[in-house]
């Protein structure tokens, strides 16, 4: 987490603040509502609260008992990690009918997301939400993560996780703002177009290494402005905008008669 703190001036800052705010809200909620004090261990109360939230917010599409329909996936057996990921990144509830559900400001607190997750997990077994240690970037090896990320992830998400295009309007999102927990959950559940990377394919340690690599990418770039980390195209655009802007400006100055 040291690395996270070091880049507080960076684009991560809002995310951390937001996450903190969410946890704070959760904590306040927990203090005010003693019945669900132990938010992280799925008790019967959580499941019940989750069921209530599900019926109010999700059942229109996913069905009263999460059984899904022809066009909407069943949630039985997707596991807590999947629900937590979809809800905490704002992908669910989905708003417009677009090629894919994009991330947006979440509608639920982390607390509520976990309650929803607990309810869905109670319907059938699936991957659970990882604990702090499993996703702690400080325990991972960023260099090993580099190799794994390049092989398994970079072709969609770009070398530094800046995102990329898929077919017919779908895309792989940028990973700059994703929390370690979200990255882990995405790998284990394979949201939407993304394939699943189960623990035989990428072990828990492999996944932590990948998280360590992504977090290391958030250090300030030693070369100066990153120009969006989009590679040669953005570099070319900047060469013409800044380089030729200044150079031709200078040329016009030299060629103009002095007054």
């Amino acid at each position, binding site marked *: 987490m040291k690395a996270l703190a070091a880049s507080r001036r960076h684009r991560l800052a809002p995310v951390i603040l937001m996450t903190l705010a969410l946890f704070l809200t959760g904590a306040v909620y927990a203090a005010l509502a003693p019945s669900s004090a132990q938010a992280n261990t799925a008790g019967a109360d959580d499941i019940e609260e989750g069921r209530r939230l599900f019926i109010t917010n999700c059942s229109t599409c996913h069905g009263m008992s999460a059984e899904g329909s022809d066009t909407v996936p069943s949630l039985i057996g997707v596991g807590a990690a999947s629900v937590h990921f979809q809800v905490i990144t704002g992908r669910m509830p989905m708003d417009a009918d677009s090629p894919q559900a994009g991330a947006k400001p979440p509608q639920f607190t982390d607390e509520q997301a976990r309650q929803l997750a607990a309810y869905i997990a109670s319907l059938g077994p699936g991957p659970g939400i990882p604990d702090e240690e499993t996703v702690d970037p400080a325990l991972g090896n960023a260099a090993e993560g580099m190799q794994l990320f390049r092989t398994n992830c970079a072709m969609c998400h770009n070398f530094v996780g800046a995102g990329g295009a898929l077919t017919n309007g779908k895309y792989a999102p940028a990973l700059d703002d994703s929390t370690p927990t979200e990255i882990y959950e995405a790998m284990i559940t394979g949201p939407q177009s993304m394939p699943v990377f189960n623990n035989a394919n990428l072990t828990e340690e492999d996944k932590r290494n990948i998280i360590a690599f992504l977090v*290391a990418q958030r250090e300030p770039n030693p070369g100066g402005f990153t120009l969006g980390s989009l590679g040669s195209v953005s570099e070319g655009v900047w060469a013409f905008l800044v380089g030729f802007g200044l150079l031709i400006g200078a040329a016009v100055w030299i060629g103009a008669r002095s007054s």
Partner: protein
Amino acid sequence: MTTDLAPGPKVDPKIAATADFLDTRLGISKMFKGLGRKLFPDHWSFLLGEIALYSFIVLIISGTFLTMFFVPSMTEIHYPHDALPVTMQGQPMSEAFASTLNLSFHVRGGLFMRQLHHWSALIFVGAMVIHMLRILFTGAFRKPREINYLIGFLMLITSLLAGLTGYSLPDDVLSGNGLRITDGVVRSIPIIGSYLSFMVFGGEFPGMDVVPRMYALHILFIPGLILALVAVHLFLVFWHKHTQYPGPGRTNKNVVGFPLFPIYVAKAGGFFFIVFGILGLMGATMSINNVWNYGPFDPALVGAGAQPDWYMLFLEGSLRLMPSWEVVIAGFTVPMSVLIPAVVVPGVLFTVLGAYPFIHNYATKDTGEHHVLDRPRNAPTRTAIIVAVLSVFFVLLAAGSNDLIATHFSLSLNAITWAFRVLFFVLPVVAFIVTKRVCYGLQRKDRELVLHGHETGRVVRFASGEYAEVHKPLDDFERWVLVGPQPERPLEIEPAEDSNGVRRPGHKKELRRQKFSRFFYEERVEPVTPAELVAAHATGAHDALPASEERDARELEARTH
């Protein structure tokens, strides 16, 4: 003059002695006599070539720095565990990549030099292209400068090779994929493709030879070639004397400008430092080609947004636009969807570009020397052709970035690709027609301006009650720019039969040539002639008022205020 052999009392004796020393050995007084006060016309667009020249010098300087620390070897090593960046520690990689990391992170100023070198390369090729466009738009390639144009064209090609070989050296994933694509393109060439691929890589891709080979080409052969071409190019610029824009006092027989010493020593010399300075600031603050993000080359990997540097992007776009097509003839495979976009398209583009002065000569049967440039509007067909070709180039650039366009504008990748496939054929036609019309429109506007003068915004009322805006006529100097340049006319040819009614041989060929010439020059807007101007003055109330009426008008205005 400082090289005076018999120094007068004002000359510093030390300078005189040095000058004498050099003159008796090198004859510098003769050189200085010939070149010292040579005139150069002043215009910002004449400095575009200098940007290319100076960024080339910066490339040599920064490149020399890099060669001191770069190891052109593909031998596999493991990156040390105590070296930066942490994401590479202990990983297997080639010595080339490891030395690139080392010179970026552990050589003080090394990363700056790498970035300076890369930015200079982008600017170098860009400046050449913009310079070439200036030459084309203004007709500076015309007789007697066709050969110098060709030399410039060769420099552009060699620079692309310099870029390609340099880009491949760090042996990171992106450069390796660039080579992989090069391999795919080379292999597609019929009959010899496979063998050419073996020739480039010393066996199969990637092999162990390609980085040292590219290195030898990149630091020795190609820059040597460019330097030789630069020398000839500059010599011919001096020999021909520089072109100039049309203007009062400027003719095909003179040069109007400032002397080399001291004005252009200061201006051109100063511009070198400005170019170096701007490139330096870019290298210091803007990261480029962050190879530590890409990691060492591995043939199993590629990242989203994998693109070459901008000057190769049109090839990438061309490859992306092409639909699937592969034919097998008598058991031999011809991959058309590689061959056409990567060999045929650039082949046609470069042939037309290199041959343009000769196409022009074919259309004009050019006999005289041209030292006064065209304003682009005064050569509408040529301007329109250049814009049309440019529009194709831009479509290819955009197609090469289609994945980034898709993600940044939330569009479908497939839809964009289809749009560009259509635009590739439609846009140049539209661009040609629109540009030509715009040129004619501008020429007509010039005529209007000459005939009726500048609008002053002053509205006056005459004694008769008539209102009119006062127009200020152009002075002789301003008018000359608009009426001086005469348009080209299509070729006149001899009739099909001579006076005895005998068919002339070669007439058909001439007819074809005339037809071609008419395409360029048939439709034109003639500049205003003196007779037209007099006529306009005679009929127009728009011109400056006669002195008496002017006075009346002033009084009227004063009263109304």
